[in-house]
């Protein structure tokens, strides 16, 4: 069957549109990646000469290394604390009815709608009023607040999908409520808890706005270190760092996918 010219035009314009959208999505990444290989100390695109020296600088610049380890420390602590606290709150809110239950849920989920700079500024003011130092506990506390809603959301979804009869069956078999929680509920919530933790960790590691307020030179995370760098230098080191960032993330995700079953951690698989 021969298509009409209008149909062909429509078909091709659709393809062009999709290609344009994809290009638009990828463009910033592409520009940064190409810029990273520019030999000149300018954030210029396209580059005139090629070099790998900015990668070397990204690795040797001590603030970045320290920022990376600081960020990792903050992330591991914050997302783990948020996991325990958030899951406990989520289970309590899901299971029990009590006074001011919806208020509690609203407060715990509020960091979703309160801007990060508001939270950062608030914590900073509180810290200076109470005389608390700007050490790691402060940064970690801020991050816990920020990622708590995501852990709770993910736990809620897992709880919705949990068949209550499994817990009833366990208790009929003689398991005390605590034993039911440890042997049935938590193991079955684990994929949801892990995905909540992973999500929290990614958000925490990339968090910039609130961290800028509450961190100091000693506790600054990688995004804050990058911001401080770009205020002083305009060379492609940040672009190189971005390329490393993308590559490492892709590697980690591939690893998780291949060895841990990413679809399970992200709760895509129904089982």
């Amino acid at each position, binding site marked *: 069957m021969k298509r009409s010219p209008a149909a062909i035009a429509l078909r091709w314009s659709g393809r062009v549109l999709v290609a344009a959208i994809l290009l638009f999505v990828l463009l910033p990444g592409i520009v940064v990646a190409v810029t990273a290989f520019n030999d000149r100390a300018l954030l210029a695109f396209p580059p005139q000469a090629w070099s790998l020296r900015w990668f070397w600088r990204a690795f040797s610049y001590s603030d970045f290394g320290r920022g990376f380890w600081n960020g990792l420390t903050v992330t591991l602590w914050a997302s783990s604390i948020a996991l325990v606290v958030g899951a406990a709150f989520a289970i309590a809110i899901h299971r029990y009815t009590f006074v001011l239950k919806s208020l509690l849920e609203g407060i715990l989920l509020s960091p979703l709608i309160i801007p990060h700079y508001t939270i950062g500024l608030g914590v900073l003011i509180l810290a200076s009023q109470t005389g608390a130092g700007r050490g790691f506990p402060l940064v970690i506390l801020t991050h816990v607040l920020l990622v708590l809603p995501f852990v709770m959301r993910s736990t809620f979804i897992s709880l919705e999908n949990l068949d209550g*009869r499994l817990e009833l069956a366990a*208790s009929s*078999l003689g398991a005390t409520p605590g034993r039911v929680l440890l042997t049935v509920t938590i193991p079955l919530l684990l994929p949801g808890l892990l995905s909540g933790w992973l999500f929290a960790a990614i958000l925490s590691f990339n968090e910039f706005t609130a961290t800028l307020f509450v961190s100091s030179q000693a506790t600054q995370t990688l995004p804050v270190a990058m911001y401080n760098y770009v205020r002083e230098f305009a060379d492609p080191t940040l672009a190189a760092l971005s390329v490393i960032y993308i590559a490492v993330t892709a590697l980690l995700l591939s690893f998780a996918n291949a060895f841990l079953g990413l679809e399970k951690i992200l709760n895509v698989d129904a089982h």
Partner: protein
Amino acid sequence: MLMHTDRMGVSASTGAGRQGRPAVQLDGVTKRFGGAMALHEAWLKIQPSEFMTLLGPSGCGKTTLLNLVAGFLEADNGEIFIEGALVTETPAHQREIGIVFQNYALFPHMSVANNIAYGLKTRGIDKKEIARRVDDALALVKLEGFGDRKPRQLSGGQQQRVALARALVIKPKVLLLDEPFSALDKNLRGSMQVELKQIQRELGVTTIFVTHDQGEALSMSDRIAVMSAGRIRQIAAPGDVYRRPADRFVASFVGNVNVLTGCLVERRGEVATVSVGGMRLGVPAAPLAQAAIGDVVDVFIRPEHLALMSGSTPGSLRGTVTAQVFQGDHIDLYIDVAGVAREPVLLRAPGIAALSSCPVGTEVGLVVRSDDVVAFLPEASS
């Protein structure tokens, strides 16, 4: 020991009339959800080793009653006893009951063997003993060698066997079955029913079985408690529920039944006589205690209790065949009986002769060939 081979072949004692304390007893148990009455003053005694079925449509309160016995719900009023001990406020994990859910509720993250072992581990039994009893339980449900599988690797029927083994291995005081067959296909359902009944009989475990399927209830139970709208309407052996339903609801819910309009003509002792289109039939008098001679009553007649005559037979009900449905071993005939039945009367004609002898439009006579006819007052006045 889970298997009591020495007890194999011993026929089930129905428990009815047996001496001693009941295995399960409900004294006026009531449960409301919000304002809705889910269970209204249930009184029930279940004897040791008895297979008691709770039969009724969805929302009749049968699952609520089961959950109350299991300890998953708390009664608003009344008391529950298991083996004579008051358990109304005992939490589920201390009641020693076994339960099989409709969806089996196997722990998806545990192997078959660990599912079965779960209730033994909570009891702190030593590992060797657990392994031996799990093996016995697997043998009981004919799943030897399946211990290492995960539940999702099993068919529906196999999952049900695991659920049954898991519930039985703890030697429960009562076995609760919550519509366990409804997720199985029809053929498998039949064989699982036979097998479950056999295991129940072998072990002599007191069983409460919840179903909305009257066929399952009639075929498996020692006694049936028919429920509707939160009330127990009748507790009796399957044959009695079928032949002597206590009220209109039981008569129409259990089995097919024709409802014919008649009138009460006589009452003598326990037997009353009703007239249906000139045909006089004896019925139990008790359900008609409120009726006066001459009152209109609804007469309930089973399809298999009707017989065909030629249209001119004296004393028979005259009717016209309106439809034939070939069922293989018998023919369902629908017969319009004017003035007596609002809907066509269903009659089971054995064999296939009726197919040719009673084509649609044939004038036929109907007679009742049974004493198992019951009559109740019409709906509005009952």
